[in-house]
């Protein structure tokens, strides 16, 4: 299906995209995740044909489409600000792509009605788009992009302009519509919760490259480096210096791992362990990976207590079955098999 190979683009002299490779397979919902300014939107625009790539090619079903005009690609694109045509009604907006395909009028009308029904906005057909709320605009933009039956759908931060409550309620509807359409889609976002909630597969764009790609569980379980773990918010990260075969030094002591690490002596790395794996008062001081800590506070989160701790000036987070009073001294233990060692 879609293959991007070696895409390069400069922005104000700096490489924004520096050789990006990416594939989207049939019926797959790929989520392109990255910080704002990482070039996600630019990559979408290059795929759509709205911007030229400085190097590399774009393929669709093994055909090189790099030099095709945007209207010759049959790719749908939904903009972050929706870009609804302000001088057209809701129905006319949705009909635009169908008219451009040259469909006869009755067919256009029929498809518009269907499209508005799937987004539950049939009664809005003759409304001006400028009168719609943000959530309604978002749905019309989605219907407009889907109506001409594009080969591929691209969504650029489709929920970015909406407030949090609306996002939560819309994301499931979006997931339903996208999976229902059966079309391959690229979904661009900087919000990892949104990405985990919607994606079949994730691709993280950082410093001009795809840093890692895979199913959400894979990225969650096996992030390739410390930056990615921190970007995805996977848990406690501590800077360390490796001491093979299976130990590493940190500012307040030494960690021991269950498996030997694959790093040279004294190389900078990071230790990742999840809050639920951090045990409080489980071992006496002196046991493996056990340190002195001070409780800062305990926050009730429903299923667990989030206990914020400080170990020699370093903040750590633990999930615990019970609260611990602020200011008390405790011991924390991280079982050796629960620690991941990541390159910096």
């Amino acid at each position, binding site marked *: 299906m879609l293959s991007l190979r070696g895409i390069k683009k400069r922005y104000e002299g700096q490489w924004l995209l520096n050789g990006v490779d990416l594939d989207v397979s049939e019926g797959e919902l790929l989520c392109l995740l990255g910080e704002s300014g990482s070039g996600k939107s630019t990559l979408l625009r290059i795929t759509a*044909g*709205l911007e030229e790539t400085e190097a590399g090619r774009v393929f669709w079903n093994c055909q090189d489409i790099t030099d095709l*005009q945007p*209207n010759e690609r049959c*790719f749908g694109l939904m*903009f972050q600000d929706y870009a*609804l*045509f302000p001088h057209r009604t809701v129905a006319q907006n949705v009909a635009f*792509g169908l008219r451009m395909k040259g469909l006869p009028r009755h067919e256009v009308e029929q498809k518009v009605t269907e499209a508005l029904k799937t987004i539950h906005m049939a009664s809005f057909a003759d409304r001006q788009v400028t009168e719609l709320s943000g959530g309604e605009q978002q749905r019309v933009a989605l219907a*407009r992009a889907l109506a001409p039956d594009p080969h591929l759908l691209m969504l650029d931060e489709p929920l970015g302009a909406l407030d949090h409550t609306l996002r939560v309620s819309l994301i499931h509807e979006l997931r339903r519509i996208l999976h229902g359409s059966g079309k391959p889609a690229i979904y661009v976002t900087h919000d990892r919760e949104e990405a985990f909630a919607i994606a079949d597969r994730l691709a993280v764009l950082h410093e001009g490259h795809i840093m890692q790609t895979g199913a959400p569980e894979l990225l969650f379980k096996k992030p390739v480096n410390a930056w990615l773990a921190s970007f995805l918010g996977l848990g406690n990260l501590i800077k360390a210096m490796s001491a093979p075969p299976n130990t590493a030094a940190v500012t307040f002591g030494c960690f021991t791992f269950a498996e030997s690490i694959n790093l040279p002596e004294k190389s900078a790395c990071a230790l990742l362990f999840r809050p639920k794996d951090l045990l409080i008062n489980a071992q006496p001081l002196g046991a493996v990976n056990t340190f002195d800590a001070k409780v800062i506070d305990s926050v009730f989160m429903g299923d667990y207590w989030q206990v914020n701790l400080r170990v020699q000036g370093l903040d750590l987070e633990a999930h615990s079955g019970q609260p611990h009073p602020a200011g008390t001294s405790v011991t924390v233990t991280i079982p050796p098999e629960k620690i991941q060692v990541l390159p910096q």
Partner: protein
Amino acid sequence: MDTLNAQIGASPAKTHKRAGWRTFLLWVLPVAFLLYFFYQPLAAIFKLVFSPGFKAGWQLFTPAAVARIFFFTFYQAALSTLLTLLVGLPAAYVFAKFDFPGRKGLNLLSLIPFILPTVVVASAFNTLMGPRGWINLGMMALFKLSDPPLKLLNSLPAVLLAHVFYNSSIVIRMVGSALGRLNPRLTEAARSLGASNRQAIKEITFPLLKPTVIGAALLVFLFDFTSFGVIMMLGGPRYATIEVEIYTQTMQRLNLPVAGLLTLIQLVFTLLLTFLYNRIKHPKYGKAAVSSEAQNLKKPRGFREKALIWVVAVVIVLLIAMPLLSLVSRSVFTLDAARGERGAVSTGFSLRYYQELFINRTGSLFYIPPIEAIRNSVSYSLATVLISTVIGVITSYALANPSMLSRHLEPFIMLPLGASAITLGLGYLIVFNRPPWNNPSFSLLIPIAHSLVALPLVIRVLLPAIRGIPSNLRQAASVLGANRVQVFLQVDLPILLRALLASVVFAFTISLGEFGAASFLASPLKPTIPVAIFRFISQPGALNYGQALAMSTILMLTCAAGTVLIGRIRLPGEELY
């Protein structure tokens, strides 16, 4: 509870409070000025048309002739507008969309004509296509002809060319800025939905720009319809428009009633156009159609985009740069002998025409050196600056005050602003043809007429600036103990300084280049620069021609300098249309 209700009930009335005596005082001077110097002459023209003397006038001028002149005026204006759009729209598109080398310079060049006085434009085209212009000189030298082969002067094409030269800058500026503000995502969305570039322009760009394009077209039509100097100097006697015919009837036939009738027709028509212009609906699309980010220029790709840029660039250079360069170069190029000169004449580069500005030769008409005209114009312009600034500041303050009185008086103030300089000229000739007004050594009427012409721009510069002064600054100053005068001096004035400077420069350059009113009101012994240029350029003799060109060049450079100065003063608030 009762007090709360009372407060709620009282608050809407506050926005349209009844005018206090201070607001009333503010209105006295502008209203008196307009009554005396605009409405009185206008009433006199009305009276004249319906006076018994009118019958005598009709015998010399038939309704068929009036109709013919009206239709010609309409025809040339429509044709000029069409051609202007043909040049201006593609240029606006190119400047708003593409990044190419020379874009800035070309864009600046395309905006120059708007600030040039009509006489300068007419002289510039004369030096290019006139009997003594470069093209004819070149062809005569090349083919050894004794007469100029190209007879473009005194023809419709010359008028049309000058009108396109003049007004394409309006189209480029208005449409270009609207296009630049248009959200580029809209056309991109259309492209990704399967629209070709042409379809995207037709379906999205053009409908969204339509109000702006219609507005620009109406404005251009209004300017072409009321164009005076260009037609006087390039159209010749055969191509009289209403304005030119008013001049002819007044100054040559002394048939004031017919001139009055033509003035009324003209006034009604321009009011109608102004009304239409103000009626254009600008739909409020809000954020949807406007892009917040910086203008997104793209490099041209493909043959067609490059070709479009080349065509626009060539047309702009040919249409705008050529006449201006031709004027400057011809003004420093001596070609043939001046009258009364003997012996061999050195042809080629010389600053002779500029030196002659200071010399009173008997060969010169009216026996005045051109430097006198420059001196006259400068003193008239300074008087205009004074009058228009005083009236403009007071009127703007009165308009900025949201009161019932302001609302009712606004149309009364704005109506004269659409009137043409010719109407003023004719009206003043009828009403003020007596001492002290017809003092031949300094006609106060000229700066007064020029002030009325300049007032719209002055008010448009000052009003947003005055409205933009945060009222809490004034309140803070008065709480700190400043009285009203001190508040004005310490708060308003420093904030308004830039806008005031801009309005002064506007008034000065407008007065310096104004031709219509001055051609009615300037006494033969005290011509202004444009009047002198008009007289000199139509006289035989190389020296007269050269002097006219030297004056035109000086006028052009002065106006250009004024515009650069205004551009440097960054104005707060709205655009100047």
